[in-house]
Each structure stands twice: as C-alpha cells, then as structure tokens.
C-alpha cells in the first residue's frame, strides 16, 4: 500500500480551492448550494483570468454576504434590484464582466420587474439564479417558486394554488425575451451536474466577453434549513420533487 504522505504532495495536487475564493469560512448552512455555486463562479473567473475585469452584484438573500467569499470587486444590492444595478455597471464599464447572483425570492418575486427589463434590454451581463424554492435568509417562508404542497413557514399546510397561486417558472419567461442569448437550468447536486453547471457558467461569462447580451443560469438548489431536511435528504427531495417541475437543460442557446 502506497503511503498517503507519498501521495499528498504539491506536485500531485489535482483539485483545490479556487484562488478567487477568500479564506473566510462561508456563512452558509452545511450543504448549502450557494457554496457550490460560489465555487463554480470563482473557478470560472480564475480560469478565464478575469479577476481584474469582473464586478459582481449580490443582492439581499443568504448570498448577500458573497462579498466575504469572492475575492473580486462586489456591490451589495438591495432586495431584487441587482439587475438594475448591474445594468448601470455594464453600461458604464462595458469592458467588464458583470454578473448578478440572486435568489428566487429576490429575482422572481420582489425583483421581477428589474430582471424582466434587464433581460429584455439584453444587458450584457450574467445572471446566476439560485432557485431553492424558499426564502432562505428570512427563515424559510414561501417563495414564488415553492412547489404546490410544499410546506414552508408561511404555507405551513403546503402551498395551496388557490391561496398563493402556482409556482413561477420565471426562467421560461426569461427565455422568451429577445435580449437573452443563453438561458439554461442547471443543478449542482452531483459531480456530473456540477461539471455541467460550471460549463454553463463559463459559457455565460464568455458570452459577456463576446457582447452577446444576457446569459441566464438558473441553478435548482437546496435549502436544507428552510426545507428542514439534512443536506443529503435535501438533494434527494430536490431530485424527487423539484427536478420533475423545474426540468434541467438549455432553454435557449443562440
């Protein structure tokens, strides 16, 4: 048997934390998808060598603290308004790679107006949309994306369409808008999904470099705290319930 210490050597390192991630311990709950997607964004920025050229806009939601974890210039935005903030950044600094990083409450509820119009104008930005079907930060309330029957703290008996309407597939709406060039729905619960998701993020950032308009990446995610399941069970629940409704794949790639 080879000695472990023979293997754990600098020259044998094949995977380690991206240099675009800071050394701060992430404030997210154990198993939170935000952490995985942060990592993918960081890896893409590192691989494209665009740290100097990237400006992130991270609104209210659990990931409002993204500026603690991503070693790039970041603007924290108010709830829902990141696409408007990013619009100005992209227009005033057209040589930069501008992205927003938004939750589902943020993007699909309070910020519906801003995201629709930014995408419709075809702002040259990347939108990363973390759809965990719940308001994570405020303690697990119903989101526009919560599934029918899904219990949350404001739909304790499960979401009832009569009372609360149906879950909003905003990504499908976004794909209708001529300003968008790439609209895709991804996940990050398995190594294969993570690889695909990273490819999508890479393509989105490249699209910005090629001035192709808005690239929109939904990541169907978990919120173990809001869902009141363990991280592993959350992934299973997501596969069983979320993915049949929020089907993965590209909606548009021009």
């Amino acid at each position, binding site marked *: *048997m*080879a000695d*472990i210490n*023979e*293997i*754990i*050597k600098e020259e*044998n*390192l*094949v*995977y*380690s*934390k*991206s240099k675009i*991630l800071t050394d701060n*311990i*992430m404030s*997210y*709950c*154990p*198993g*939170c*998808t*935000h*952490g*995985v997607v942060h*990592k993918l964004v960081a890896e893409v920025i590192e691989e494209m060598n665009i740290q100097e050229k990237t400006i992130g806009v991270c609104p209210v939601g659990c990931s409002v603290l993204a500026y603690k974890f991503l070693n790039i210039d970041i603007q924290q935005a108010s709830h829902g308004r990141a696409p408007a903030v990013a619009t100005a950044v992209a227009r005033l600094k057209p040589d930069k790679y501008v992205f927003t990083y938004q939750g589902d409450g943020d993007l699909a509820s309070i910020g519906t107006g801003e995201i629709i119009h930014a995408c419709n104008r075809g702002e040259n930005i990347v939108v990363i949309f973390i759809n965990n079907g719940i308001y994570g930060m405020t303690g697990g309330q119903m989101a526009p994306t919560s599934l029918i029957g899904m219990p949350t703290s404001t739909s304790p008996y499960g979401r009832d369409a009569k009372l609360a309407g149906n879950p909003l597939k905003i990504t499908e709406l976004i794909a209708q808008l001529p300003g968008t060039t790439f609209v895709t729905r991804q996940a*990050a*619960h*398995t*190594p294969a999904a*993570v*690889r695909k998701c990273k490819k999508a993020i890479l393509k989105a950032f490249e699209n910005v470099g090629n001035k192709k308009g808005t690239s929109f990446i939904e990541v169907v995610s978990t919120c173990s705290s809001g869902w009141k399941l*363990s*991280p*592993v069970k959350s*992934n299973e629940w997501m596969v069983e319930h979320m993915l049949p409704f929020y089907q993965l794949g590209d909606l548009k790639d021009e």
Partner: protein
Amino acid sequence: MAKVKGAIKVDVEKCKGCSLCVVVCPSKVIALAKEVNGKGYNYAYMANPEECTGCTNCAMVCPDSVIDVYRVKAQVGA
C-alpha cells in the same frame, strides 16, 4: 500496469460535516469522524484511504471547498 491512486486532504476546521462528499464518493472512502471540530461539526475524513482514486467527485460537490485532491499513477507490484 499503472493503477491510479489518490488521496484527499480535508480542511478539518472548515468542514461542516454535511456528508455530501460521503455520498458521492464512488469508492466509499469518506466517512464523518466521531470527533467534532472547533465548530462542533463531525468532519469528513478518509475512512478507507487505500480505495481513493483521486477522482475529485467529493471536492467538486463540497459546498465549502475544503477538500484538496491528490493523484498519482502507482506502479502495481513495483
């Protein structure tokens, strides 16, 4: 014949014991320790180190980016 051998190094103090790495490891290398780290989490460690192929699956899904993966091509019988 070359056999791929791997190993992982977990940043124990930053691990949150979420188990996502445990379930994606195809070789059942990882387990959560009975002991806890400074934050009170049962951290991930290599329970079956000889099985690791260095496939990076665990590191890829780790939300906290606390796994480093190493890989060598070991000569069998050498």
